[in-house]
Each structure stands twice: as C-alpha cells, then as structure tokens.
C-alpha cells in the first residue's frame, strides 16, 4: 500500500510538464548561468572564517620566530588565533579531538634551510571539513617568506655595494650604478628562490586532511553553483509534492483514501516516501546531467554522493510534509514553500558565498538544510571520502525528522 501511494505520486509529478521543467530544466540552466558568470569570484577567494591554529615550532632559528610573530600573529591577525605548543604529539591530539581545526609544524632547521635555499618542509594539518584553513596558512607563509627574502636580498646587496665603494676608493656614478643591483632583478631572484624554498605540505603539494585523503583547496564556481542550485531545486521538487498533497486534500482524494481502510500511518508514510522518491530521483538526474554535460566533478565517492543526496532528499521531504500540513490551499502551499526555500537558499549561501556575508548570517546559515547539504557535497568534491560527510548527513537527518514530526502531528490532527 505504502509503495503504491508513493509510486502513484511519483508518476503524477513526472507526468506534470510544468513541474518537470521547474525540477529539471530550470536548475540545469541556472547552474550553467551562475556557474559560468560567477565562477571568477571563486578564483583566489578566501571563503573562510577566523580560526585557531596551533604552531609547533621545532626550529631554533630567528626566521620561525619572525614568521610566528610577524606573519601569523601580526599580518594574519584578522584570520588566525595563533597559539604555540612545544609537543607535536599534544598538538596532533588536539587536532584529532577537534579542539583545533589546524596545526602547523615548523621543522627543525627551518631558518638554516631557508637561507641555504633548501626546501623548508613546513607541514600543515587540518580537519577534513576545514580545507580552506590550510590554504590560508600557506598564503600567509608564502607571502611572509617572499617579503623576508626581499629584505634579506636587498640588505645583502647593500652591504656588498658599500664594501665595494670602500675598497675601490675611486669611483664614478657609472661605476656605482653598475654595482647597485637593479630592483627588478632582485624581485625576480626573490621569486625564484622563494619558489625553490617552497613550502612543502605534509603529503606532497595537496593539503593532507586527518582522514588521510589528498584534498584540493577550493571548489570551482560551476561546482559551487551546481551544489547550491541542486539543493535549492531539490527543495522545489519537494514543494511540488507538497502542492500535490494539498491538492489531494482539496479534491477529496485524501478523504476517499481514508475511507478505503488504509490507515493514516500508511497514508502519511506513503506520501512521505513519494516525496522522497521524487526529490531523490530529481537530484540524481541533475547530478548525472551536470557530471556528463557540464563536467562537474562531484568527487570520487559515489557512495558519499548517493548518501548525502538521500539525506537532503529526506530532510527536504520532511520540510515538504511540514509545509503541506500547514497550508490549506495549493496556492498557500506554493507561497509557503517559496518563502522557506528562498530564505534557506539565501541564508545557506546558495546565492553568494558565505564569506561574503555578514557574520550573523554565517551563524544563521547553520540552521538551514542548504548549508549542511552543500558542505557535504563540497567536502566530497574536495576529495573527502564517505566518512567525512557523516556529520552533515546526521544533521540533515535530524532536521528531516524534526520537520516530519511537525508535519505528521499536524496531518494526523487534521485527518481526525
């Protein structure tokens, strides 16, 4: 009975051309437009909040001290809270227990290696869900090293020039000019040497997350908006089912169902399952479409993508049930759905990246389905595996249960 009700709803929605256009064609088009038009916003962007970093300094030289004080604590003050820890094991433990999201290990001989032009091998470890932190540390460290190298090179050249002047005693302006190095040459030299002394991340050039997977640093614009629009339109898919539910009440097919002997629990479960089928099918079609037509990389974990999609379909369907139980007419259901979906999408970072929003909105965003679903997808896109998305899945399921609970309670009251 339950499956029959669910399949019937699926059949009805997928025969509705208008609903299909809203659920499949519109998101595909919007994903393309937003992904292409706003993609450059994601190039070199820094979409993160202020975070705590623990530095384990094994170096005894001056450069690491200057890096911590001047680089992290002074220039990085807007983004970092920097603490020192002498014991690497303790720092690792803090990371494992999620007391901090990022640790930086400055190796022994860092200062010496830097001046001798060898690789400095700074290691950065970060939580799987805080992939941006590592890129912030990397940027600060690189910028600091470049600047430091410039001063050092200039100072060395200055000493050489003065020494030459003193030793030769007789000189002309032309000689002096020849001896003073061109600033452009110094800059070029600095770039080269900084490159040679490049900061090596633990686990080669990728940032190593605690789950041991290599991760890319950011998602592309197309990936970002494919996820944002997927989540938004999955909620629209659920709202199509919601409208159908209200229409059933208006046309009295729901009343007729109640007279057939099918219990209220079976009807509610069937309706919910129907919504779940609709939204899950819609989401999977969109994922496959964007993967093969737009080339969107959804990550390597198919199981992860399926799981997070099931979770957003579940919570979206729960939301749909709640709205369906609140609305008395199909137009009211449509209005309420629009209100919920658009608010959730804007607050949840579906329209513009969260780092561009004010702080209070970033906090509010965590109350939306969109934020949790999107973060799950982004983690997968950045290389995380199945286990990394489980917290997001848990929150989505919890939200879905909450919405569904409200919906079922209201539906049962109305049916009585």
């Amino acid at each position: 009975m339950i499956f029959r009700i669910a399949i019937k709803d699926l059949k009805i929605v997928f025969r509705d051309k208008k609903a299909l256009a809203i659920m499949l064609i519109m998101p595909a088009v919007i994903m393309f437009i937003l992904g292409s038009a706003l993609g450059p916003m994601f190039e070199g962007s820094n979409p993160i909040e202020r975070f705590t970093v623990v530095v384990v300094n094994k170096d005894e030289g001056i450069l690491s001290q200057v890096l911590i004080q001047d680089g992290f604590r002074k220039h990085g003050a807007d983004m970092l809270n920097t603490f020192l820890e002498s014991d690497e094991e303790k720092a690792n433990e803090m990371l494992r227990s999620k007391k901090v999201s990022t640790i930086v290990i400055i190796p022994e001989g860092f200062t010496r290696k830097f001046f001798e032009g060898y690789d400095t091998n700074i290691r950065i470890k970060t939580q799987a869900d805080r992939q941006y932190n590592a890129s912030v540390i990397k940027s600060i460290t690189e910028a600091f090293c470049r600047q430091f190298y410039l001063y050092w090179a200039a100072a060395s050249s200055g000493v050489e020039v003065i020494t030459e002047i003193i030793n030769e005693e007789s000189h002309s302006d032309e000689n002096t000019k020849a001896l003073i190095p061109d600033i452009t040459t110094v800059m070029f030299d600095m770039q080269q040497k900084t490159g040679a002394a490049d900061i090596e991340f633990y686990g080669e050039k990728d940032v190593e997350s605690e789950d041991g997977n290599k991760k890319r640093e950011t998602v592309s614009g197309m990936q970002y908006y494919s996820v944002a629009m997927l989540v938004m339109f999955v909620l629209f898919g659920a709202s199509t089912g919601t409208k159908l539910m209200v229409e059933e009440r208006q046309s009295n097919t729901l009343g007729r169902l109640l007279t057939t002997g099918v219990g209220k629990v079976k009807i509610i479960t069937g309706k919910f399952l129907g919504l779940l089928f609709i939204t899950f099918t819609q989401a999977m079609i969109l994922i496959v479409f964007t993967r093969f037509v737009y080339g969107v990389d959804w990550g390597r974990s198919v199981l992860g993508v399926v799981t997070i999609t099931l979770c957003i379909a579940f919570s979206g369907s729960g939301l749909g049930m709640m709205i369906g139980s609140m609305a008395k007419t199909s137009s009211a259901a449509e209005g309420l759905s629009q209100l919920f979906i658009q608010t959730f999408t804007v607050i949840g970072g579906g329209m513009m990246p969260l780092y561009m929003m004010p702080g209070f909105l970033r906090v509010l965003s965590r109350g939306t389905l969109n934020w949790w679903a999107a973060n799950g997808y982004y983690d997968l896109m950045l290389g995380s595996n199945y286990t990394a998305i489980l917290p997001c899945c848990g929150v989505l399921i919890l939200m879905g249960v909450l919405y569904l609970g409200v919906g079922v309670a209201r539906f049962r009251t109305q049916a009585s």
Partner: protein
Amino acid sequence: MAFIDIKNLCKSFGSKKAVDNVSLEIEEGEVFGLLGPNGAGKSTLISMLSTLIKPDAGEITVGVYDLSEKPSEIKKFFGLVPQEIALYPTLTAKENLFFWGRMYGLGGRLLKERVEEGLELAGLSDRAKDRIESFSGGMKRRINVAAALLHHPRAIIMDEPTVGIDPQSRNHILETVQRLNKEGMTVIYTSHYMEEVELLCTRIAIMDGGKVIAAGSKEELQKLVGETETINIRISNMSGKEKSLIEKIEGVESVTVGEDKITIAVKDADSVLASVISQFDALKCKIHSINIDETNLERVFLHLTGKALRD
C-alpha cells in the same frame, strides 16, 4: 434491527450545528435518499457515516458493529462516491481504478477483473487508457462511481453524484444505481435534485438546518402536505409587492418568490388561478409561463420549511 442505525447524532463546526440530533434507520437493500438544500447537513452526516469525521455525540451502528469501536470493519461495508471528482487527473481511467482497487485491498487477477468490470459499468472501456483530465464532467463522474464499487461493498454512499453533468451521464448514473439496488446493494443517495430522489429512493429523509424534518416513503411524505397543488409561474417585471398581495387571495396557502419565478401552494389550482393572473396583470408583471404540479417532494419541502429546495 436496521442495517444502519443512527441515533441522536450531533456534529458542530465552531458555533454552527451542522448535524443536530439526527436519528435514522436504513434497511439493507433499500435506496435511502437524503434530500435537502445546500448546507442542510447531508454531507456532514455522510462523512460521519463513512468514518471521515467523528461525531460530537450519538451512535452509528452498521450491521453488528459500532462505528466508534470498529471503524475499520465498517469501512469494508461501504463504498463512498464523494461529491468532488476524487480521482487523479493525470492518471488514466484504468490507472485510477487500479490504484483505488489496490487501496481497497484487491490484487492480482481479481483486481484486473474488477477494473474491467468498473470500466464497463462506467461505459468507458474504450477510453480506459485516456487520462481523466481529458474526460467530460459526466465521464469523470461515472469513473468516480466505478471507483467506489471495486471492492463490491454492501452499501454505497453517493454524495450528490450528478452535480453539473450532462443528461446522458446523469441517466447513466441513475440507471447504475437502480441496477445495483436490484442486485441487492444498499444505496444511500444524497441530492438536492428532488426528481432524482423521487425516482430512485424507497425511503427519504428531508434535512434542513442540520435536522431531519421528515422521513418516510414518498407517499408518506406527500401525506404531510395534504391535498395541495403548486402553481409555478415564470414572470418578469416584478415590483416586490407580489408575495403579500397573492397571499391575500383566498385558497392560497403559501407563496415563494424566486428571481424570475413564483411558486404558489394552493388547495385547488383551478379556483385561484384566474385571481392570481389578474393580480399580476394589475401589477403590470409579464407572465412567461404557468404550470401546475401535483404533490411532489419540492412541495413537501416547501410545506415543511416555507422555502424552496433550491433556494
């Protein structure tokens, strides 16, 4: 003991009493009519009988089951034809019947047979694969009836099954009701079309304002009116004074004024007709038609409530 026994049933929505202390007995195998204007309480009574809403007070017994204790058993007895077209417009006629059959617990070959039977009963076997949204109002109503019969219920409850349909479909539904009743099915039929109720029903309850104001066979109800006749006059250019002036004519029992119609209950139509016409003439009203009805349920309702059934 009656097949369906309703005792002192009450249901209110807010301060409005939709069903007010209604008691009825319906025998197995009869066509029982519920007649009354819109808002009389017929649909609320039917909703309680079909377990859709709970009564505030009173008892309903069907067979040996008390509705408050065994609603699921009682559901098996009934097939409900709601006033609305309770079908899925984007599914085909066949898909709709298959769905409702499954909801009634049918499956396999039996379900297939019943669906074919339903399509035949609706006279729409040739349109089985067409979507309901492509059907006329009458065709939808016929499938609406067929869907309620798939599980072969002992009684069918039909709530205004002929509202807004073409004469052909209306006749088809009325013939279906007669056929089902001949086969032994109990039918509870609500309508505000008194001709349908007169044609089909063996017993009738007239409802108004949530109450049953009279119940019995057609003959028993007619006796309540006595030997009166009705003069129906279609008229225009009315001034508003017609009712009071006509009521003063000797032999006139009651007058009901509609938009372009006046209904006059009289003891002997022949003796008052001339006076009525001359009165309208004096008021400069234009008479379009006059017809005289024998005693019918419309007159019974008019007699009992002082208003026309379709007011």
